[in-house]
């Protein structure tokens, strides 16, 4: 006897579009929370200092870089540790989240072959985990500012906006690159090299004044240039970005999010076959 009711699942009208994926993700929001929780709890489970490593990691890098730059390159930038750390936090957030999204989809994807889960769960939870780490790592930034006697500015209240734009960009890029990594396994390895080059092409560990003026327009093509800038201005220079500084960041953030989401969801039906 044929069933006259409306099917719960019908393969004929179940095209995964950008919008339905968003709805599915809403239904699985508890899973998102659980995955973030799992990643944070298990990452440092076997280390003695545990979650403290989230703070110690950028702090250590900052100490090395400050030592190198103040002794060998004689930098003139005041409060150089604050300068480095504020840029590093942005960069670590971006690289950690995109890498976690790749491994989440490629390796954790063994689950996708067994049960139905909305595919974007891995990318979004990777961002969630990195975001928690970013918020935690504000603590060492404040400590360094106190030790270095750097001034605190009201403009730092702008930081949540900067983080939101950075998150939009990171999520869009993470979805794009993780999708690519499923179809081309070499992308995961290649991306590590790209990340290193990308970091040195962004003024994070060296002052922007070091860039030759005739090269500056090229550096400004780099979206991460703008992401770092709108995060660092309020902390370091004590002012909110101007519209000329803010709009490129906003454009890259929203643009990448839309492109990444559309690209990722357009391939949704293939992941279970490919991972």
């Amino acid at each position: 006897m044929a069933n006259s009711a409306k099917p719960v699942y019908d393969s004929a009208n179940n095209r995964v579009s950008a919008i339905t994926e968003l709805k599915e993700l809403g239904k699985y929001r508890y899973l998102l929370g659980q995955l973030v929780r799992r990643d944070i709890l298990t990452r440092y489970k076997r280390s003695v200092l545990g979650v403290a490593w989230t703070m110690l990691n950028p702090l250590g890098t900052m100490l090395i870089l400050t030592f190198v730059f103040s002794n060998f390159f004689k930098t003139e930038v005041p409060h150089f540790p604050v300068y480095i750390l504020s840029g590093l936090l942005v960069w670590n957030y971006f690289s950690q989240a995109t890498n976690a999204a790749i491994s989440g989809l490629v390796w954790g994807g063994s689950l996708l072959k067994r049960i139905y889960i909305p595919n974007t769960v891995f990318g979004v939870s990777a961002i969630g985990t990195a975001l928690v780490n970013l918020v935690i790592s504000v603590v060492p930034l404040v400590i360094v500012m106190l030790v270095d006697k750097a001034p605190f500015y009201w403009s730092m209240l702008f930081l949540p906006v900067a983080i939101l734009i950075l998150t939009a960009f990171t999520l869009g890029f993470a979805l794009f690159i993780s999708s690519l990594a499923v179809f081309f396994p070499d992308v995961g390895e290649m991306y590590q090299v790209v990340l290193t080059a990308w970091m040195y092409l962004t003024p994070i560990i060296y002052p922007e004044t070091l860039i030759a003026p005739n090269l500056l327009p090229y550096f400004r093509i780099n979206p991460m240039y703008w992401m770092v800038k709108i995060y660092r201005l309020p902390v370091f220079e004590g002012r909110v970005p101007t519209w000329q500084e803010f709009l490129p960041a906003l454009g890259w953030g929203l643009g990448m999010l839309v492109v990444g989401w559309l690209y990722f969801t357009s391939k949704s039906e293939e992941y279970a076959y490919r991972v």
Partner: protein
Amino acid sequence: MSDPQADPINNFENAPDIIQLDNVSVSYRLPSERIGTFKEYAIRTLQRKIRIENFWALTDISLQVKEGEVFGLVGNNGAGKSTMLKVISKVLKPSKGRVRVYGKIAPLLELGAGFHPELSGRENVFLNGALLGYSREEMEAVFDDIVDFSELGQFINSPIRTYSSGMYARLGFAVATAHMPEILILDEILSVGDEAFQRKCNQRMKSFQQAGATVLMVSHGLDGLETMCDRIAWIDHGKLRKIGAPQDVIAAYREEMA
């Protein structure tokens, strides 16, 4: 259903279809044809040599499962049984044909796939529940049941890596069956745990069945299938070979295997 001599099919003739497969085919790309690097991709695109060789895991399968039935699948390894379960549980989209499902499906994760070894049993219960699509409240409501059923006692607070494989399997089964689904999918799970636990699993399955759930199961244990199922389909090289009463299908299958 109390009369074992009755023809099992007739019991469900008037029941509505809960799963409908219409001319379903599924093709996989062969791994050798998978393109690994950009270079390869670019070269092949230029040479127009991207030929995708398809392997048809299922070809033109049409069948209906009735509401409340215990439906079994038999076939050799690689015949397409697991692919069929995946198509039904929304994991794979069929390459051709149409799948319609009229109820909520609870797939059984293979023995706690998705468990994290460093997390405690308790934490894994919630993580696994979330993977199956349940909310926090839904998992809290059945948590005590899960601990009871899996007989883990105090071990529920220890990391899963300290568990024996039996404890692992028991917890996996307990989580997946904590809520009665409208359709329960079982892929080779009844062969796990000791005999006492297997009996317990069977009892739970029977209670689901009596409460009106539909069960879809794959197993190599032919005797078990014959006694538990109302109907069986035999899948051979991706095609539907025979479908009907368990004793008929199993007999035909055994004959071919002999």
